[in-house]
């Protein structure tokens, strides 16, 4: 399961928090990461209370990266709020709110801009609160962005197909006993060896965690190579992290 699909801390957050006791901080799980997408994706999205994010088809997001043409620009006379209506020709106009400092020239209509920001909903209408707005430097940027929209969507769709779950629902198929080991995919998206390694690391109580050797000793049914590959995958995705050295690991969710 990729980072943006699960609730809870991402690997990056856990690295910062290691050592702090976050147990008492009951933050609602939310989708992290930036989705590169079209305006139509945002305009058609619905807010999901359960997932604490916006959803459209197979895409779930809170923060987005967009590019579009400014159709209308409104700069507060004595303030720092600029409101833009942008258009990327995917159908519809999206409102961008930008609280800016006074540096830089105000952006004018008929300029293409790149925006990174959070999707918000107010009075049943979505808009984006921008963290970053910049004028398009090169037309190649616009083309690259459009291609990236396709790429991001395709990756997320493939990830969803791989896990065999409906992206919008939480499937919890519990395979008890050895039966689950035979299937390549487990319902939570991990292979049997990845699942075994992750579950073992979740039982760790010490700060140093388990070493690769210790993990292999505990999981004799898998080869050292399989365990090492699983560790690489899990740490790359942020589910586990290395502690005292590259040979010791802990799970990110405990």
């Amino acid at each position, binding site marked *: 399961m990729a980072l943006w699909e699960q609730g809870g801390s991402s690997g990056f957050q856990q690295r910062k928090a290691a050592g702090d006791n976050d147990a008492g901080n009951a933050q609602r799980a939310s989708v992290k990461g930036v989705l590169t997408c079209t305006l*139509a994706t945002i305009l058609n999205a619905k807010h999901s209370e359960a997932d604490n994010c916006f959803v459209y088809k197979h895409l779930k997001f809170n923060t987005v990266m967009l590019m579009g*043409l400014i159709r209308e620009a409104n700069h507060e006379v004595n303030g720092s709020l600029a409101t833009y209506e942008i258009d990327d020709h*995917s*159908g519809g106009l999206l409102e961008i709110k930008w609280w800016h400092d006074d540096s830089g020239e105000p952006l004018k209509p008929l300029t293409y801009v790149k925006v990174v920001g959070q999707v918000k909903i107010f009075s049943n209408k979505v808009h984006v609160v921008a963290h970053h707005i910049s004028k398009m430097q*090169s*037309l*190649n940027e616009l*083309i690259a962005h459009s291609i990236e929209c396709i790429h991001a*969507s395709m990756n997320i769709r493939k990830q969803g197909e791989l896990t065999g779950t409906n992206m919008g629902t939480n499937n919890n198929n519990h395979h008890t006993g050895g039966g689950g080991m035979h299937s390549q995919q487990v319902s939570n998206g991990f292979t049997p060896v990845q699942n075994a390694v992750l579950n073992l690391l979740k039982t760790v109580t010490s700060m140093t965690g388990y070493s690769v050797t210790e993990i292999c000793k505990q999981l004799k049914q898998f080869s050292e190579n399989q365990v090492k590959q699983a560790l690489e995958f899990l740490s790359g995705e942020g589910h586990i992290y290395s502690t005292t050295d590259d040979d010791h690991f802990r799970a990110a969710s405990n």
Partner: protein
Amino acid sequence: MSHHYRINGSMIQQYSGKPVSIIGTVSKVHPSGNVIDLETSDKQHIVVRSSENVNVESGSIIEVLGNVDNRNQIECDMIVAFEPEQTANFDMDMYNQAVMLFQHYPQDYLVNL
């Protein structure tokens, strides 16, 4: 603003009557001032008609937004001009390939139809 299909020259016929967006190089501006000959990303030439005087230079790269009429010409609503720095190293071939991608992956390049 409705969804505009990103197309090149060879796709014009398919999109007759539809709103399109085309990026191309201005080949010629007619003396009348409101008709342009545009070279598309696949090296074809199309005619773009505007209701107003178009203020573009021959050789510049522009984006045309409009509808394909029944003569396979573009009835243009808007022309977006770019600054020379923005189009200095524009990869027209890459853009042409991207145009194919938009067609082939409608389930990933999400639009409001």
